[in-house]
């Protein structure tokens, strides 16, 4: 009930008001430090808006194969398959040059 009232409130405010934060969105804040502005003209690629399948495949391959030249494989071992899937879905929904 309370939640509905809040939602109603936002509708009234005609809002640009964002929906409630999700876990994937908050996790992505750390990704954004390096991948964030989607310019992708640097050594670190832009990822925003890439297809979900492609993102999930590269996250999974970092987890499976490891590697020495990037730090991604050091991060990805911390995520469960479900978290990787959610994160990939969130990133694929972002606007970006990689679209």
């Amino acid at each position: 009930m309370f939640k509905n009232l809040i939602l109603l409130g936002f509708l009234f405010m005609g809002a640009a008001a964002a929906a409630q934060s999700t876990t994937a969105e908050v996790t992505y804040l750390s990704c954004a430090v390096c991948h964030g502005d989607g310019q992708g003209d640097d050594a670190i690629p832009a990822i925003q808006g890439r297809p979900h399948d492609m993102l999930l495949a590269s996250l999974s391959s970092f987890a499976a194969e490891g590697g020495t030249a990037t730090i991604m494989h050091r991060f990805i071992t911390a995520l469960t398959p479900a978290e990787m899937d959610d994160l990939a879905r969130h990133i694929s929904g972002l606007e970006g040059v990689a679209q």
Partner: protein
Amino acid sequence: MTGPTRRQTLAMAGSAGLLAAPALSAGRAHVVVVGGGFGGTAAARTLKEIAPDTDVTLVVDADRFSTCPFSNLVLADEIPLSRITFGFDAVAAAGVSVRVGVAAEIDAARKVVVLQDGNEIGFDRAIVSPGIDLNFGAIPGYDAGAAQRMPHAWKAGVQTELLRDQIGAMPPGGTFVMSVPNNPYRCPPGPYERASLVAHRLSRINPTAKIIIVDGKDSFSKQSLFMEGWDRLYPGMITHVPFAENGGVKDVDAATLTVEAAFETFRGDVVNVIPPQTAAGVALRSGLAGDGDWCQIDQATFESETAPGVHVLGDAAIVGDMPKSGFSASVQGAVCAHVVASWLKGAEPVSDAVLLNTCYSLLSPDYGISVAGVYRVNAEGRLKSVRDAGGNSPMAADDGVRQAEAGFALSWYDTLTRQLFG
């Protein structure tokens, strides 16, 4: 540009109490962010982006900010200070009210930030990321005056240029002495990156010069990777004297450029004293650190343990296992903005997300190494390192790997500073 007056703030707080959701009250919620560095700027911009109906004021103590990250490249004379100096025009253009002024105190009881000029800015919530202060007085003989002769260069700006110029003027075959504190301090690998990049410069302009690191601890971040790189790039130039061998710095003398440790006296031609540090003065004055040197917070929400409604992050706070880095402060600022936005809406903040940190260090402009960490809030509310994740660059890697990491470091820096200040 000014925030609500005290009366308006009180009125807002009153109606907020009634509705239990300030964002829905007639007045707009007002969040004041103190400190326009990594944590504060990330918090202010993220909050304005995700909660555009919230008024966000960013209090900055100067109209420009020079980053400590990449300041060691300025010491190496590879880039000018202007390359790492940013203004706040883009922050203001994004809808954040940028207020130039020094915060004298954060008064949690009255919900106001008191500026040094006597003005007060009322807030519903405050986010405080003022960084560090150098603990002058921790080392006898080292005060603000001595820092003109023996620069710390641990806040980027004039101190960086002073040290850069001293290195350039060092006599042939001279000695660069660096005094490094025990943990915790800003940027654990920073002193060793500095030694590396000073060596890079000296190996060209003054190849018989020596570097001596007088350390307040026995081991340091990425130690084997640094030592491996020093042997390769600058054989014989850098000597690391661990605490066990120097016994701790007892005092320094700016007149004779000496660092007096318990077991040995080190005299340099250029002396870089990096003293112990504390949370910035405004945090201490506002009681945010209690009796200690660093601010204790709820590690899931960054809310102060002593001042409800006030969030503290970045170098000034103890943020679980996360190191004091610009990367960490930026992540914490953005995550804290989500917490604050949720609370202003009356919603529960996300608490099961992952936070990351990477500290790149350059041993030369094209030789990079890194340490990465992954953090999660555990059942006890502590932000802990995730086991079996994170870690260092590999040892004995080929030049291609080191060069790639130097490229990642540059890419990280430019991407992050574009998002904060561009």
